């Protein structure tokens, strides 16, 4: 992970545009020059809406793209906050706190980067793909064709893209681990490789298992319900292995959101 994340700032951002994509995904483009110029791959911003007034928490979003003064976020409605976000129009304002957290480590030369994305988790991987010295492979999955996101962006960067959908409407039918496994077990595949993943916990755990089995390093970006975003409130904790082997709480907003998959302690499903 980046040892020295940039100092976060509070920035008033202006909505430049908002597009609705198929599948209910929203692309929100904001003018936020300060954060856009500092953000490292895998970092997030904590977004505050000014309406409705009774929302007391910010919402965390991984940065999808940063381009000059513009910052792009990709999200889906999951509650009242994201529902209200869909009503943002060009010219309106939001407050951003960021860039926050520790992102992905700088890609190493001579190591093939391999991305594994589930749903809008793909957005959190774009900046990392763009920062890689050479293009790699991107495994992108979703429930249906509309949930397979950012593949054109990865292809534009010269990446080899493999797609899986659970309903079989695009690419291989099944979970994204299906084409990933085919790749990992292929004796003719390039080596060494390094995995970078973002998506639902089930996917991240599956990636962590494969990383262990194939003895490769995997970095996973985790999504947790968050309070302050700066490490003060201890809401977004995740159990990780301390150097002595014991389980300790890590703050996803501060020590994460990107973790070495080998460090994460997975809880059994309730």
């Amino acid at each position: 992970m980046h040892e020295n994340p940039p100092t976060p700032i509070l920035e008033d951002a202006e909505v430049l545009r908002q597009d609705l994509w198929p599948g209910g995904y929203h692309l929100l483009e904001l003018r936020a020059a300060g954060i856009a110029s500092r953000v490292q791959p895998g970092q997030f911003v904590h977004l505050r809406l000014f309406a409705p007034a009774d929302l007391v928490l910010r919402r965390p979003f991984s940065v999808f793209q940063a381009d000059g003064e513009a910052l792009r976020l990709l999200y889906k409605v999951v509650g009242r906050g994201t529902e209200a976000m869909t009503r943002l129009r060009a010219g309106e304002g939001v407050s951003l706190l960021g860039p926050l957290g520790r992102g992905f480590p700088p890609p190493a030369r001579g190591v093939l980067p391999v991305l594994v994305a589930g749903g809008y988790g793909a957005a959190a991987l774009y900046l990392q793909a763009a920062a890689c010295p050479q293009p790699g492979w991107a495994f992108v999955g979703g429930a249906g064709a509309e949930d397979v996101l950012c593949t054109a962006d990865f292809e534009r960067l010269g990446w080899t893209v493999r797609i899986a959908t659970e309903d079989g409407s695009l690419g291989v039918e099944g979970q994204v681990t299906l084409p990933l496994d085919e790749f990992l077990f292929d004796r003719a595949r390039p080596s060494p490789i390094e995995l970078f993943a973002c998506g639902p916990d089930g996917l991240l755990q599956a990636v962590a298992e494969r990383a262990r089995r194939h003895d490769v390093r995997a970095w996973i970006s985790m999504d947790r319900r968050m309070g302050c975003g700066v490490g003060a409130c201890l809401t977004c904790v995740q159990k990780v292995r301390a150097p002595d082997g014991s389980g300790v709480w890590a703050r996803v907003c501060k020590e994460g959101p990107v973790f070495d998959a080998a460090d994460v302690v997975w809880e059994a499903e309730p």
Partner: protein
Amino acid sequence: MREAPHPGGGDARGDPDLSVVLGSLRLRNPVMTASGTFGYGPEYADLVDFEKLGAIVVKGISLEPWGGNPPPRMVEVVGGLINAIGLQNPGVEGFLREYLPFLRGFATPIIVNIWGRTAEEYAAVARRLDGVEGVAALEINVSCPNIKEGSKLFGTDLDAFRRVLEAVRAATRLPLMPKLAPNVSDIGAFARAAEDGGADAVSLINSVPAMAVDVETRRPRLANVTGGLTGPAIRPMAVKLVWEAARATRLPVVGMGGISEAEHAAEFLIVGASAVAVGTATFADPRAAVRVAEGLRGLLRRLGLASIRELIGSLRP
């Protein structure tokens, strides 16, 4: 900094005086951070000018490190949030080693919130902090929902409350400020017990016991099942309880509950609080406490008052 040595002090241009006295503490302004919402300081150091705060109240400290509750630990509800962090903290030695040296670098009083599972544990933390440079006062957390003595909550049982205060009072010369629970039938009785037990101030309200359920899964939204409600939703309740507490005791009262604007702080001051704390609002706006303090200056000008002390307890019939 231009405003030293008393940034809150009035000056020849008629700048209102924001400084308040809290027992033996003099604060440059009446706005402090609420325990549990400001971490131990470093978390917000990049974003907030600590020297514009009246005081910093750090997250609760216990004798030994404490892991807290499993997640989910927080859920947003209409007008507030419910938390069940479970008092996770590095323990008193961890605090002294990792955080206090940093906090000493600021000319802002540091109030340490303490808790224990027994009266003796409270006293042990207080004893360890007694005489430590950089600790200005102790806030005694008797009202967090998951600290119990047997089945009784220290914050809602008057005898248990007295025992904790007695033990802590005997363990330290530091100014003491018990933080009162809102869910009691007579808040005045607790304020009076604080005064009788040698406290120097009281703070209130702590979070309000609360619960939320996910209807789809029919599961509690918090792993701990219940938690404490904070934020704008509790403010009118908090104002009423502060009003009652301030009338029941001569001790200074620190009022809190849903403050995010200077006008909210002024409500608490008018009903008798000598100072206030900003908590949940910091999550949305890290500079909320500073903004409230600066807003009070403008509010005093608007009301034609030269000092914040003219506002305190000025409720009209």
